[in-house]
């Protein structure tokens, strides 16, 4: 844009030959650039073509419908006779299982640690900062290897000679080198007449949340809006529980039979190691994000609130956090994206995430480029999806704030 005035006046005098006319030169530069890129692309593609021709292959995704003939023991049910497409789906679901659980717990851990880091208690803040420094200055893969090979696989066996040797926690929850077996609710026959209550509860909770928030905004009077919403959300299903014949949900308790735990739900050692590793790692980064966000709120804000008689909890909840969130959300998004991308390290400890499954598909089918494009597409769309959601959240917070 800085050239436009000089070019314009020069062109008017008709004194500039076209090879010195910046407008022409720009077009030429771009055309040359595009030609170079296209030529390079064509050269690469040509090499790929001859590679394909040598092996009598063609670029196609028809292999996805073929029988995979390998087994995947993680996530949604899969048997060797299922198709490649289904195998990839298993991988995608496993990645989502890790990333979603990981994001929730990493956020909680990061929030607690970030606040602890700012604690006025010297010991608490230094414990938090030692944790943060250790985690941030060592590679994630080293942490995962340590967690998996040196901690989880070294846990006691589930059972040795008819005697349960696993670490038993209340529930009963069994922690062993076979993973974590814990109780899990299972829908019974009565569930069908009960689930409408759940939907009603959800609707009522959302409506209440909107109404109460508007009420607070209009009157400015503090209200325990969140409490009411939670109450409504739990009260309605509870009433349903009493009305419906029989229990809609049964707590399925793990029982050790033979060498395996049956019933409840069992998380594989790989899943436990990966999720725990990602939570601990990302938690340290989120703690720093939270700390920076809280420090970004001017001290005067908390002091003014204290002067007006707010309690410390109220100051954090009503004054500091809403303002800090504005600073926190953008870097938090990139931490969530990092967690999702880092879940690809699963292959190092043998968890069957989307990347690990794709590698197996590739080894079986030999479709290198096809599978690679699928991996790229899966990660890019996941990244896009997370940043889309978080951008919506971000916009809401910005509006509420100002």
């Amino acid at each position: 844009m800085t050239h436009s005035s000089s070019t314009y006046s020069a062109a008017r005098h008709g004194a500039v030959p076209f090879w010195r006319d910046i407008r022409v030169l720009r077009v030429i530069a771009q055309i040359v650039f595009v030609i170079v890129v296209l030529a390079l692309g064509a050269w690469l593609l040509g090499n790929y073509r001859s590679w394909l021709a040598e092996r009598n292959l063609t670029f196609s995704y028809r292999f996805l419908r073929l029988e995979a003939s390998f087994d995947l023991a993680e996530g949604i049910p899969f048997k060797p006779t299922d198709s490649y497409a289904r195998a990839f789906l298993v991988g995608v679901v496993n990645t989502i299982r890790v990333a979603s659980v990981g994001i929730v717990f990493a956020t909680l851990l990061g929030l607690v640690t970030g606040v602890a880091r700012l604690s006025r208690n010297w010991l608490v803040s230094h414990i938090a900062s030692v944790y943060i420094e250790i985690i941030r200055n060592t590679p994630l893969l080293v942490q995962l290897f340590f967690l998996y090979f040196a901690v989880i696989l070294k846990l006691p066996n589930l059972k040795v000679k008819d005697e349960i040797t696993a670490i038993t926690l209340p529930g009963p929850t069994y922690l062993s080198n076979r993973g974590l077996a814990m109780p899990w609710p299972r829908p019974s026959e009565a569930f069908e007449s009960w689930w409408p209550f759940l939907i009603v509860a959800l609707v009522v909770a959302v409506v209440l949340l909107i109404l109460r928030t508007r009420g607070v905004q209009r009157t400015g009077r503090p209200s325990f809006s969140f409490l009411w919403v939670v109450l409504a959300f739990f009260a309605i299903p509870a009433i349903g529980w009493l009305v419906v014949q029989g229990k809609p949900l049964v707590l399925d308790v793990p029982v050790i039979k033979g060498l395996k735990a049956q019933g409840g739900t069992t998380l594989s050692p790989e899943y436990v190691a990966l999720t725990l590793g990602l939570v601990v790692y990302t938690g340290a980064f989120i703690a720093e994000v939270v700390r920076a966000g809280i420090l970004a709120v001017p001290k005067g804000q908390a002091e003014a609130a204290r002067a007006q008689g707010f309690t410390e909890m109220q100051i954090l909840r009503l004054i500091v956090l809403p303002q800090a969130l504005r600073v926190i959300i953008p870097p938090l998004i990139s931490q969530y994206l990092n967690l999702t991308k880092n879940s690809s390290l699963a292959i190092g400890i043998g968890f069957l995430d989307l990347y690990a499954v794709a590698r197996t598909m590739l080894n079986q089918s030999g479709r290198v480029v096809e599978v690679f494009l699928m991996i790229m597409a899966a990660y890019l769309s996941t990244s896009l999806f997370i940043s889309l959601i978080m951008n919506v959240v971000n916009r809401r917070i910005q509006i509420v704030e100002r």
Partner: protein
Amino acid sequence: MTTTYEKPPATEVGVLGWLKKNLFSTWYDILLTTGSLVFIYGVLREIIEWAIIKATFSTEPGACKEAKAAAAAAGQTAGACWSVVITNIKVFMSGRYPTEEVWRIWASLGIVAALAVLTWWIWRSQNMEESRRWVVIGWLLSLPVIAILLSGFSEESEILPLVATELWSGLLLTIVLATVGIVASFPLGVLLALGRRSELPAIKVFCTMYIELIRGVPLITVLFMSQLLLPIFLPPQIRFGTVVRALVGMTLFSAAYSAENIRGGLAAIPIGQYEAAKAVGLNNLLMIALIILPQAIQKVIPAIVGQFISLFKDTTLVVIIGLLDLLGVAKAVTSQHDFIGLHKEAYLFVALMFFILCYAMSYGSRRLEVAMGVGER
């Protein structure tokens, strides 16, 4: 009239005052402090007992098994067995690099150390502004010198026989991967950053797409691309070894992140600098090369150091494609018969190495930021 001053109460000043203010100011503070103390005591006792008191440092084969048996007989758990680290320390550091050629690694380290001391000394003294450029040139020259020193000329060469890149492993490989990754990606990053800020739509779209594509996928997919796709998309005459392919992957990946850092620096250059450069008659190329880039790069040095640290940690991913970096060595060592099952010791050692190096670098970068006045306006 005499005024008597009362001393402040002993509980408000000195050690007691500090304790009261920082550890015991309210009832929940006391609770937190007590909890923390118990926590620290528990953790430290476990660690010290395992790593030092009960540990076996002997490198004799079988010493660990004896210690373990003795502990089991006494009904206790055994401590660490550090022989896995002590015996293999050379493997951890330089891996399969030929023993008679290890002096070349030391020589390279010597060059870097000498340059570092020289740099520090020249930057400290006021009247040596002129020599600074020689230091920069020295650093630039040291890279090819070290590269030749480490890899050598050819198999027959008397002075520096060839050491195939496949033999580079251990900490050496980790450092080489990270350094080459950041250095080689830098010019690429500059081009991408300039391209992304270009007014020519075709170039801008291309550079933006490259940057966002790479930043949207995990490093492991880029390494995967360099390992498996490179041989497919290049003609059969061009073939690289695994290490070189990993380097290509690291560079392509790191370039996208370098580009974003440099773009940040470019955005911080006031428009007046561009206008002034135009006014003294510089063309676009000279303006960018002489006026804009030097200032932009100086602004982003701390960010580049940060990127180097994270790239340094990310090099561990090459384990997944089968290279023997520091972590790869630990993995290989713990699957040997003599050291089987000693994962805790080996991985803790690797973690400690990374921690020391990364912490030192981030400490240095913080000092650098202060010295350069970044963040002070």
